[in-house]
């Protein structure tokens, strides 16, 4: 679990082809909506969030990161029956934060990915909770054990997913 600080010269910036940039988030949202019907436990995962973190860290551009987060979040919102924007705002912050962090850290290592995903999952949930309660007045149930468990589960899944998605990266 090595977390490496990387100098600006060592930073690799990646880009993605248009089909990948469009289809990967769509597939993530599709699986997020479809798999829990067959396997209810899968609802603890947040595949769209993992995709946001991955794209943001790989592109290493805060603007691209926040736009990716906003688009995926809004798309995720529109499948729920709540007002659109709750996931959008939370994922915008996460996209911005992950890409800003990607500029400073070597996010290729497993240890970094585990830590970053765990941290951003918790940040995402806190933001979602605050927005949903503060603006939409949803009565949400907050449980630290549940959130931490979900964060670790997402981080583990993220490690495998990121390794798979690394193959889609193109050097800029």
């Amino acid at each position, binding site marked *: 679990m090595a977390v490496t600080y990387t100098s600006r010269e060592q930073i690799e910036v990646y880009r993605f082809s248009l089909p990948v940039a469009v289809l990967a988030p769509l597939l993530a949202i599709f699986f997020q909506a479809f798999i829990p019907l067959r396997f*209810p436990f899968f609802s603890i995962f947040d595949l769209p969030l993992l995709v946001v973190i991955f794209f943001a860290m790989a592109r290493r551009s805060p603007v691209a990161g926040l*736009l990716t987060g906003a688009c995926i979040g809004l798309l995720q919102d529109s*499948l729920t029956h709540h007002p659109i924007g709750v996931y959008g705002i939370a994922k915008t912050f996460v996209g911005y934060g992950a890409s800003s962090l990607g500029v400073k850290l070597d996010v290729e290592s497993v240890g970094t990915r585990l830590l970053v995903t765990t941290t951003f999952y918790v940040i995402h949930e806190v933001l979602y909770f605050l927005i949903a309660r503060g603006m939409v007045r949803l009565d949400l149930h907050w449980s630290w054990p549940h959130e931490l468990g979900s964060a670790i589960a997402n981080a583990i899944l993220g490690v495998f997913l990121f390794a798979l998605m690394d193959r889609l990266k193109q050097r800029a």
Partner: protein
Amino acid sequence: MGRYRNVTFLAAAIFIQILGLAIQVKRSTENESSRLIRVWAVTAVTPLEKGIVRLQTGTTDLWHNYFYLRGVRQENRRLREQIEQLQLEQVRLKQDADQARRLQGLLGFKEQFIAKTTAAQVIGSSGSEQSRTVYIDKGSRDGIEPSMAVISSQGVVGKVINVFKSTAQVLLINDQQSGVGAILEQSRLQGVLKGKASGETVIDKIMSEEEVKLGDRVLTSGGDQIFPKGLPLGTVARVTKGGEFLQVIIKPAAELSHLEEVLVITKKEEHAAPVSTATSVRAADILAQRLPSVPDKPQMESPAANAVVGQTKPQNATAIQPGAVTGSAPQTKPRGSTNATTAQPKPPLDASGAAKSSPAKTQVSTPGAVTAKPTVIATPEPKPAAVKASVPPTSKPAANAAQTPSKPASEIPGDTPQ
């Protein structure tokens, strides 16, 4: 400016989304203001879901219907036996339903029956733990409309909230924003079944001094005007006391986390239970049986009446005067009979069973046939004259009345809904 470029973009993106969110929250019709985005998202995601579900269903059907036919004969035999048992049970339930309808008719209750349903497959969910909704593969072109009830073979699933061209979004009963009128089968306590943030379903606002039994079935009360009365919602799983009210945790009857096929109730019929004279007489007899303290009417000699009736009337049947139940002699109807009716425990209604049952007008074809009812011959004291003498000359015989359109129960004095 270049230094703050990223932060400016972030602030702008957040500001726009907060503004949009605020507008949606402010407007009461928030679904309309964001309708276009939802349509795009649903159009982008659901075709793939539909395709996979159909592929999965097709493969499963192919396997089960053409290749894997082991044990089909045994299963067929077992199912035939089960059908026979169910037919027996159906006869019994039909009798109960008939009786319930007659009593409801007396009280002027209006019932809702499921007239038409559309089968649909669940193709996706919202993908969020906070939004307990599912998508079905039927939409506006299949006749689906918002606020239609959705059920499964086990019980109530939810209601339609958003309708698109070929899909629809269903709000499950365990969502926080869901609310279903519910009634406990045994105690007849009523409340609203809601979802909690944790995904449990609960009936609150039941006073803490009430007694709620674990395992008691919970049915729809019909009060919400969405779900027909008598559909199974679940069973009482846990009861906790919290101050003034009880928290009754319900285990949903439908498997909400494993939904595959559902039925959307696309048409409901609402009508009062038919009150024909014949059925009223029988219901009155039933009530009369349960009122042992009502004294007999004095006997009156009337050869003409004897000629008309020509049969014997049991003692019990005189307790509630026939003129009253035909609605032709309001002054002779004791108001207490209504109270007696409402005092009876209401039997649970199975909507489908009730919808199939027909009024029992054919059971009584002549006035004399009433006396043939096994429920009223417990004390067979012949009093032919007494029965008919109390009927005013204008009143029709029961057989004629049975053929005329049923009279609204509210016209019967003392039978107004409570």
